[in-house]
């Protein structure tokens, strides 16, 4: 049974792009670290405030990017101080909730709670949700699933109480941890109706991030129970917002790739996976995701009859994780069926864990096909019997069938002489005389152009830059005017020196 959750914790980290500056400078007193973290969090509050006031999702995204870095440094003390900073009084609903789950001040809490409800001052919803997300992350890292789940339920209730466009990115994050918590708690199917309902709501409200995140979560949810066809239906029917954060897009593409691969649409799957790999952040934080995507991509390429590039397997980030696949590729490349079977046997457990086992089993045919191809390339004429022996096939007849199939699929260019029992290869076509290179170039150019266009769209232009130019023009005009007046007033003698300067 595939267990995708194993890579998830790593996947969260891929959002993060900061360098580990503070982990390097470890020798610091705990107080100092606490102060530093608190400072960061307070800085984040400022950004969230800006995001809310200016309707700039950029700031929220920025805060969320720092989440991965922050989560490793969270301690109960920091969280308590954060609550103090965020909420005007510990009797605030969210504050009370958080303190309860941190196990702090429970006794005083109960007294406050009853009296506070009427007069709670307003806290910026963005900050409120952010602090709740921080606690979600903290509880997740503590591994206390029961606590996490019950907290998630309450946090989500608070979230759904708000209806603000500016919460979009934060809400998406919260839903992610919510769904993840449920998944760890094996409540996958029960979660589905809620996710669908929220997806609808976010579509109505045009919350791009939440919509993208929920689509992804739903796909994951379906895949988790192997409900491939339902997942496929969802992909077909839901408009995935292209403008969502790239990390979510990458994940979406990965799931789509998996669905397509299982549904035998290998080229579409390959495209999705290339997209996923390109969109994912290319840092060590996203290693888990990238490894998973590469594993799948290797299989799909093999299924398509291609041989993956060797250089990928040498990348330090993938070397270890991809080594079983490396062996697999070797087997397929040579077209040796026994070696292939050995590899499956040897790494079966690993493949099952990666969720690629079923796909790998399909490769057997490819191994044989590759074998045939190798032979058709090596021999201009070979008897079916030799093929049978080479590929360890049961009989000449089955070899004949397989060769016929390979010819029909366009894997090899050959003919079979049934009477004499041999395969006759055709002359190898010069690929450069076909449309093939043209098409390949076209694909690449298209990709480059769309990449260029997307980058242009994604660029941010500094506001009012042109005003600086205007100012320069103004200054020039002023100077001209001064000069004109000086000339007219006959003060030229004194200014000779200035003229040299000009």
């Amino acid at each position, binding site marked *: 049974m595939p267990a995708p959750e194993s890579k998830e914790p790593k996947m969260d980290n891929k959002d993060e792009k900061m360098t580990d500056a503070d982990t390097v400078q470890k020798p610091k007193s705990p107080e100092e670290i606490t102060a530093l973290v608190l400072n960061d969090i307070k800085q984040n509050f400022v950004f969230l405030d800006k995001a809310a006031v200016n309707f700039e999702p950029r700031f929220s995204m920025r805060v969320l990017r720092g989440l991965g870095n922050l989560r490793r440094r969270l301690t109960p003390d920091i969280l308590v101080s954060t609550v103090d900073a965020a909420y005007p009084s510990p009797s605030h609903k969210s504050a009370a909730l958080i303190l309860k789950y941190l196990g702090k001040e429970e006794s005083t809490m109960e007294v406050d709670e009853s009296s506070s409800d009427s007069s709670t001052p307003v806290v910026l919803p963005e900050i409120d949700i952010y602090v709740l997300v921080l606690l979600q992350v903290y509880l997740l890292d503590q591994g206390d699933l029961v606590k996490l789940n019950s907290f998630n339920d309450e946090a989500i209730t608070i979230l759904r109480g708000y209806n603000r466009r500016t919460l979009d990115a934060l809400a998406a994050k919260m839903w992610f941890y919510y769904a993840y918590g449920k998944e760890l708690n094996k409540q996958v*199917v*029960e979660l*589905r*109706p809620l996710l*669908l*309902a929220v997806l*609808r*709501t976010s*579509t*109505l409200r045009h919350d791009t991030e939440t919509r993208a995140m929920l689509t992804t979560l739903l796909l994951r949810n379906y895949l988790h*129970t192997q*409900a491939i*066809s*339902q997942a496929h*239906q*969802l992909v*077909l*029917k*839901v*408009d995935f917002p292209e403008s969502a954060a790239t990390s979510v897009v990458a994940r979406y593409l990965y799931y789509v790739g998996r669905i397509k691969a299982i549904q035998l649409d290998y080229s579409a799957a390959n495209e999705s996976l290339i997209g996923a790999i390109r969109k994912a952040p290319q840092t060590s934080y996203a290693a888990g995701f990238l490894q998973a995507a590469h594993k799948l991509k290797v299989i799909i390429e093999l299924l398509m009859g291609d041989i993956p590039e060797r250089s990928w397997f040498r990348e330090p980030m993938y070397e270890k994780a991809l080594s079983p696949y490396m062996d697999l590729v070797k087997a397929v490349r040579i077209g040796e069926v026994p070696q292939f079977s050995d590899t499956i046997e040897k790494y079966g457990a690993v493949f099952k864990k990666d969720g690629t086992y079923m796909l790998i089993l399909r490769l057997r045919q490819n191994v044989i096909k590759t074998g045939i191809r190798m032979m058709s390339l090596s021999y201009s004429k070979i008897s079916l019997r030799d093929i049978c022996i080479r590929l360890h096939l049961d009989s000449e007849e089955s070899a004949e069938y397989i060769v016929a199939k390979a010819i029909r699929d366009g894997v090899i260019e050959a003919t079979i002489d049934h009477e004499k029992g041999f395969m006759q290869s055709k002359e190898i076509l010069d690929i450069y005389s076909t449309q093939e290179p043209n098409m390949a170039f076209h694909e690449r150019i298209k990709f480059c152009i769309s990449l260029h266009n997307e980058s242009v769209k994604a660029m941010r232009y500094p506001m009012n830059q*042109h*005003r600086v130019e*205007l100012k320069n*023009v*103004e200054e020039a*005009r002023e100077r001209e*005017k001064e000069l*004109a*007046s000086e000339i*007219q007033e006959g003060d030229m003698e004194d200014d000779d020196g200035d003229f040299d300067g000009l």
Partner: protein
Amino acid sequence: MAMLTSATSLLALLDEPDQSLQVYALENLNQLADEFWPEIADYVTKIEELYEDDKFPQSKLAALVASKVYYNLAEFDQSMQFALAAGDLFDLSLKTEYVETIVSKCIDSYIRSSQEAFDAQLKDQAEVAPDPNLVDVVERMFRRCIEEGEHKHAIGVALEARRLDTIEACINHAFQGGLTNGKIKSADRRFLSDGVNGVDDQAKKSEAAGAELINYVFEASMALVANKRWRDEVLHRMVELVESLHNPDYFTVAKILVHLNAADKAGQHILDLLTENTETSLLIAYQIAFDLVSSTSQEFLAKVVQMVEGSSTPGTSQALKILSGVPTLDVELTFLYDNNKTDLLILNKTKETLEARNSIFHNAVTFENAFLHAGTTADGFFRDNLEWLSRAMNWSKFSATAALGVIHKGNLSQGMNLLRPYLPGDSASQAGGSKYSQGGSLYALGLVFAGHGKDVLDFLRRYIREGSNSGGQEGEVVQHGAALGVGVAGMATCDDDIYEELKNVLFSDSAVAGEAAGLAMGLVMLGSGSEKALEEMLQYAHETQHEKIIRGLAVGIALLMYGKEEAADALIDQLLDEQDPILRYGGIFTVALAYCGTGNNTAIKRLLHVAVSDVNDDVRRASVMALGFILFRNPTAVPRMVELLSESYNPHVRYGAALALGISCAGTGLSEAIDLLEPMLKDPTDFVRQGALISLAMIYIQQNEKTTPKVTSVRKTFAKVISEKHEDAMAKFGAALAQGIIDGGGRNVTISLENRQTGTLNMEAIVGIAVFLQFWYWFPLTCFLSLSFTPTAIIGVRSDLKIPEFSFFCNAKSSKFDYPPKTEEQTSKAPEKVATAVLSTTARAKARAKKSEKEKAEAEIEMEVDEKEPTAIEAEEEPSKMEVEGAEKEQEDEAEEDEEEEYDEEIAEDEIEDKQDIKGYKVQNMSRVLPAQLKYISFSRDERFTPVKKFRSSGGILVVRDSLGLRVKTPFIKTVRERNLPPEEQDEEDEAVVPEPFDYETDTEL
């Protein structure tokens, strides 16, 4: 039971031949649709088939399932169609997201279809009735809203959906006891209480509330309903509803009637009130009469007068007197005259700096003077500078004479006498009078009688007729002046005879006279939309060779369509397709005037399109300026809209953007607008700087440094531009105009395109600005801006039309709020300081000033500043006032003795008040109250004089009730007319107000 993980099994049932199985499947799918819609979506065609199958028993259920699936697929329109098909099964009362979304979709599409139906009806096309299912859902919504007391929601939708019956139903429902509903918000409560008005015990309370309600509907339909015809329909019905009440609010009705331009009904109301003949009803009638005078056209007033004339009740003569407009002008003139705070130093300084030999500078100073003294009758500057005046040549002389009309604007009683020396005709001085001053004086006469031209129209028309006889270039000038004069004085009279006479001038095909005639035809027929006039004007515009005439006609045509909204669309389309850019220019002004103040999106789109696409600079400039007219009710929107245009590469577009800001934000001091205009002050193109200067002045009119700190530096900029040696003439001209505008009308006027009393368009102001903008081509038209100056005052008038001395309360700390009487002094003082500062810093200017025999004046200024420096504010009051008086003395030869007494009294009172002045202070009757200050003004019930109309932060003339009766003596403020009346007492004063004619002629023949 284990949860279903797939709907496949149920979906398979749909293919079964047995209908009961299909129904079973649908029933289950209906429950599960939200969860398994991705799967069901593949079967949706099958479900649709079931719905369309006549034999299928549960076709509605199928429709509901299909609707839910489409909803999840975000295909809301289709989802709505199926929800409607589901009929009763679609439960409106459920509070789910699905139902809410579909219902709002239903309402949207219902509104769309019923608006289309309404428009189709308008064009006599076949009506497309909305889907009956749709109507059913909306009806159900209406019913629910009414039952739950959510009347406001229902009314809002009904207004959009053109459903008069629903609006009435809401009101009727409220009438039957909607008040008891606790859910209603305060706005609704006001609304509802109208229904119980007069029946309820708290009659008084509900009466006030009722007025509020009608105001609400009035405002809602004004602000939100773009379709003029529908709006008028609603307003007509509202008037009927109010009239059917026991105790209608006549002021609200009058307001609506003004908006509907229903003179008959307004006349009938006044008649009813006069017939009722109680003290209150008479006072109300008078107040309405005053409101009508200040907010309607001459044609409207003439109709009302016609109706009232028949009556023979005691109040009739008084009402007729008010309706004649004379008292209004008289009172306003008095206000401007008494409170004139013009700073002559600024003007003198400008005059010194700008070389009069250059005619553009001469014109600039002329107009600055005209604006500064607009309506104050203070023409001293001319008489002090006869030598300067005599340098005016040709058209400069025309403008200078016309400026006299601006200064005496509204001085009906003496206007004719004042101008007689220059007028053509049989007087002795005529022999030497140049044609330019004759023409100018006719134009001036028109300006004096602007909008109240009954008395002079015949006189002016004579010259239109005669001009054509005398012929020649000279005759043209007189005709030009006469035509402009007739246009201004006879504005919106829609008098066919005048129109025909102007047409004759036009047909003489003289460029100069024809231009004015074209413009005047538009002014006379203003807003009539007359087909005949349009056709004739357009035809002639095509025929003539003279660009000037085409331009006059183009603007004239635009004026014809003033306020016509959709009715002008056909003409606009035609004009914008013209080959001739001048006619396209006219088309743009037609958009501006037809949609003035509506904020109509189609019009804005059209203008923005032309602004960036037309090949002609003039057209582009005009279309950006026109945005200002359309959006003046929503000034904050304009800066955002023109932000990019203000940085256009095309200087004409930049100029247009500057003026659009000036027009829409006039008098607001809006900082966003200033932020855009300030960079334009440094624009490389001279005329853009001119536009920015003028617009800044329009926006900063009547602002002081406390409300808008930047105003001081802006004033400095004006002075700097004028004094700068290398500045372009265009910019200097703009700066001089700006100085005139910012302190216009003795600092007692503002520019407001909306009537504060009624919330309707201020026709004179809008037309004034529109024609003023033509100064780009023809300087004498600059004078038109004076039409848009509105005095800012609260003037209480008793039923005998006397202005009693009393005071009302301004509920703001004088320190916090800047416009108590003494701060008014400060406002007038601040610029003086600026003026002196310039004097002291610019050493050269000072030296020159010293040379030019102004030492005496200098000393005075310095004294003035010294006196004003101490912060004891009350102490300042007197000397500064004296100072102003001193200035007036110079102008008027002598000041009136009794007035000085008045001043003394005021000062004494002020001193007493100032001691209690911690929160709020008293304001004297007939003193300056700024628009921003109005909301702090209140009247005490205990005072002897209280306004008859509930004071709702609208200034102007208020009829006051005298609790002690007319016989008890009280001090009055005499109007200028009264002061001039008894001849035996005021020999000297006659001279003061009717000055000697200026002797232009000494130098002109050089």
